[in-house]
């Protein structure tokens, strides 16, 4: 490992902390940097400064929780993308290609507009169940031993099916205002995130990250094809099912809290591969950290770019992600 890479490993968590601190200090409400700093010291148990309750609340309970949730979501989505790309040997694989977001939307819409579950089933749980169900259906469609192409095609078909169901429910029951809220749900929003959500997201993403890392070698083997993996003694079917389920679980959880946020799972793994190479041990670390940076910054942009208003974060991730993806594609074309 060359020296600058080592620096990068040391620097990345630190810079993530800085980016989160930055996110906590930027917003509509003007709060002096010193006060933001004191609030964070208070929060970390390192100080007991007297601070205006409104300012303390905004920084600790709105901005900081939101930034942490953004970091967890960014890391989770990017990791799921990296793992799916390896498992399916397909550069286009990402959670949403496999129908999870379409299913989550259908689940949310059923709860929101038709009251499925009679109130016992909240919106997030509806989204979670819809997403998990769609993913299971896509795997079923693809058949047990399907290769990458079949799963992607099954994902496309599954997404169409669930999108059609969503459109059906929306157009038969919703008026303009409700349809708009469904739209909002589809685009994703970190607006309602509070600390309990953050703990859930961090636990799910953190555990997933460790499990993925534990499978780094196996993922390396998968890149060379299932036969190669099998010849190395990897229990291919069991590992595939386990890793697919884990990505489905993580993505469905994320969607249920913040809605569907596209492009992160697709673009960030490619950016990371570009930076640290294809070995999954370093790739998974880089992908998670880069995803977290990307999403926190995207959220800051979504909050400040239009004064007095918050853009859906999916708009920002797509606007920033699409050109980045184009650059990567262009560079690859030149090297091939």
């Amino acid at each position, binding site marked *: 490992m060359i020296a600058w890479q080592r620096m990068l490993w040391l620097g990345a968590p630190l810079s993530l902390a800085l980016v989160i601190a930055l996110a906590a200090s930027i*917003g*509509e*409400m*003007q709060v002096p940097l010193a006060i933001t700093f004191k609030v964070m010291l208070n929060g970390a148990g390192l100080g007991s400064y007297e601070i205006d*309750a*409104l300012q303390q*609340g*905004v920084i*600790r*309970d*709105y*901005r900081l929780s939101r930034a942490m949730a953004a970091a967890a979501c960014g890391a989770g989505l990017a990791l799921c993308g990296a793992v799916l790309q390896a498992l399916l040997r397909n550069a286009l694989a990402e959670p949403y290609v496999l129908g999870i977001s379409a299913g989550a939307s259908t689940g949310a819409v059923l709860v*929101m*507009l038709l*009251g499925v579950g009679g109130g016992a089933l909240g*919106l997030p749980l509806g989204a979670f169940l819809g997403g998990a169900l769609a993913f299971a259906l896509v795997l079923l469609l693809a058949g047990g031993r399907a290769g990458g192409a079949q799963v992607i095609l099954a994902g496309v078909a599954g997404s169409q099916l669930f999108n059609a169901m969503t459109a059906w429910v929306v157009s038969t*029951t*919703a*008026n*303009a*205002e*409700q*349809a*708009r*809220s469904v739209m*909002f*749900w589809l685009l994703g*929003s970190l*607006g*309602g*995130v*509070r600390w309990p959500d953050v703990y859930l997201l961090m636990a799910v993403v953190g555990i997933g990250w460790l499990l993925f890392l534990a499978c780094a070698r196996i993922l390396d083997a998968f890149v060379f094809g299932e036969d190669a993996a099998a010849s190395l003694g990897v229990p291919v079917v069991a590992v595939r099912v386990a890793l697919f389920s884990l990505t489905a679980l993580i993505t469905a959880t994320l969607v249920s809290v913040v809605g569907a946020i596209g492009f992160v799972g697709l673009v960030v793994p490619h950016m990371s591969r570009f930076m640290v190479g294809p070995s999954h041990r370093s790739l998974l670390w880089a992908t998670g950290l880069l995803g977290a940076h990307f999403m926190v910054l995207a959220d800051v942009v979504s*909050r400040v770019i239009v004064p*007095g*208003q*918050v853009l859906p974060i999916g708009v920002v991730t797509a606007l920033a992600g699409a050109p980045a993806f184009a650059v990567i594609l262009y560079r690859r074309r030149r090297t091939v």
Partner: protein
Amino acid sequence: MHAYRKILVAASLGISLFAPTLADASGTDYPLTLDNCGHLLTVTGPPQRAVSVGQASTELLLSLGLGSRIVGTGVWFGPLPEALQTANANLPRLADNSPSFESVIGTRPDIVVAQYTYDIGATGHVARPEQLHALGVASYVSPSDCEGKATTAATNADGERHRLYSLGLVDREIAELGAVFDVNPAADRLRADLHRRVDNAVANGQASPQVPLSVLYWFSSSRLAGDPWVAGKYGAPELISQILGLRNVIDSAEEWPSVGWESIAERDPDVIVLASMQRRRYDADDVQAKLEFLRNDPVTRHLKAVRNNRLIVVDAQNLNPSMNVVDGIEQVSAGLRASAARQ
């Protein structure tokens, strides 16, 4: 009463004096032609079969004593106000939401009266005006939803206004429908009654504070703790604010923009008006959920309006542009009086 409010109220009364004179004492002269939301509406005689799309339109027709001529209704939000319930227990209901084109036509109406251009308009969910006119059916859309207001790709689904909503638009709708249906005396009585109620609400309003109180109108939110939909600077709530001498903290031309709680905390309103509704689509539709959120959220519980318990509950439909805004003025005025008495 502040001088500027006197002027405002006088202006709103003035508009009623200059409201279109479409009829003399003997009644409407047919054929009657009106410019309605960019279309010419021509009626050759008083319509006998009306479909009303939108609860505010239904209530207006009932208030004009036209219940027996309603052959179909749609776009309901909740039960009718008590005063209107008794006389008309069984209104034919085509759909709870937007009725289909064929179900409207199937009632063989000679006019369709709509509350929203969303239903009868360029991208009409029920029909475009031309489609109705081609079948010999007249259409009338509330000027409240098209005069000074537009819903475009650049706005959210509730649209955007570029001038302040006014009682003049309510007056105009009542006068025009009174003329169309040839019930002009009833229309005059209704308008006079609304203006008398506004004057009373202003006279009985807050014990004038030196500085106008700032206010936020919270309708609902897609997620309870998420960014709420609040009233913009030109809609019906702004009319309530202007008449009662309040200052809206939100400066957006959108009818119901979605604004973050941090932005609201930054502006720290003196009063928060909460919409109460029958709808239960989002958690925040329930006014109790809204109150609980405001009192428990780590930020909103420190807002001035919450600490001083200046939270006023108003029926949601009284915050949307129609003659119900007069009920809204009365409810907010009473709420201000009650909270002033508590202080």
